[in-house]
């Protein structure tokens, strides 16, 4: 059973995808939540120190969210399927399969 699963599933790639999804999915949701918390703390702060701390938290979280978006666009641009396909072109001169069927 495990052998069959290994034949059809690339476990190494799967774990990487799960990890990336956890960081980019749940991680970003949590970081964005802290961004909102930072803004709320800053707005409700009674001292300038508290206000700055809130904005600092929001700023750092905002930067992390922007970095996640940039990373996503980088992944789109660098995906393996965007490499030029040279091999498939060689197969294009082929006889008609109708005559043999």
């Amino acid at each position: 059973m495990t052998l069959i699963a290994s034949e059809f599933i690339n476990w190494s790639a799967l774990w990487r995808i799960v990890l990336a999804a956890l960081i980019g999915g749940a991680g970003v949701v949590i970081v964005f939540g802290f961004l909102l918390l930072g803004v709320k703390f800053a707005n409700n702060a009674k001292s300038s120190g508290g206000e700055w701390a809130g904005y600092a938290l929001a700023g750092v979280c905002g930067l992390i969210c922007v970095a996640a978006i940039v990373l996503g666009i980088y992944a789109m641009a660098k995906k393996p399927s965007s490499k030029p396909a040279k091999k498939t072109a060689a197969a294009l001169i082929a006889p008609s399969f109708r005559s043999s069927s």
Partner: protein
Amino acid sequence: MGSELILILVVIAGFSFDFTNGFHDTANAMATSIATGALKPKVAVIISACLNFAGAFISISVAATIAKGIVSPTVLVGGDGLELVLAALIGAMTWNIITWYFTIPSSSSHALIGGVIGATIVATASGDVNWHNLVKTVIVPAILSPFIAGGVAALGTYCAYRLIRRLGQREARTGYRYGQIFSASLVSLAHGTNDAQKTMGVISLALIAHGDISAVHFSVPLWVKLGCALSIAGGTASGGWRIINTMGNRITNVESPQGFAAESSSAAVILASSYYGYPLSTTQVVSGGVLGSGLGKANPIHWNVIGQMLSAWVLTMPGAGVLGGVAWAIADLFGAHSNAGAIVICLLAALAAFGLWTLSKRNPVTAADLDRTNVSPVEEAELAGIPPAIAAA
């Protein structure tokens, strides 16, 4: 002249398929943003259309293949190859329109692969399909991806609502609505990159087979890129309100933190798997994400809708395959490389599309039906099952 006309029909069918892909898959990116009132429906689809258009140009080159490693490349070449690609596109497009009519989100990519496989089986009457690779590169990722996206979205939603206890409902609702616009935009961009380029690959293959562009120094002509980008953007802009309604409102009630979690998780899964060489169905991943966001908040889930969607997912490849095979068989009745056969299957597909579009007018879903931007917090709380006193906190 025969193959030239078929080539023209392949190009038209390719652009038409991209159009159906656009309106079928708008829901993937924008359904939750519309459902939570983060964006007005028409604004959402216009943003999505622009990003789909931009996404089509993000990566410079395109793999000149469809169903790579699944169907022998030799069946997709020459005059027969052109007809086979035409039959496959017609099968996939017709399946997209059928599932749109029944308001079910299904995978356009799987429909295209199914169309190619079905037409190949009928055309060659042989084993030119690599079933092992089909299971490995399409079916297994299709089974796993909704679970991964769903699990991550459930975790994200659970954490978001833990934070909301400190934030307050109103701040959370407003804040996560802004976040949703970015996460949904990223899904739109990824959709444009993945799906517009699939059709670019199909049309480029047809042009190579016809001898219009070089097979050795392969590059996608600019008019093909523009045509595909405009087609998918045009389809996206036209709405696809029926499927948006299913994805955004009928699976579970979605609030802005859930929508943000669902879209972020889906974007992460789609981009990570695409980067590691496993392009997935955007539809299935986002559906998993929406379901997960409902489970993460312990919302009621409409399992009957999930059942309909699962049935459609299971049936997509065989269904599009049967339609592709039938299209090939009808064209083949008129003889090899026959213009008449190609014209007949195109006309039949157009007739079927028109018939389903006319039938859909009996039970229309419009942008106005889905607009939630003017829903008050109390009404929204009632929809979500939150007592008004807590919602106003």
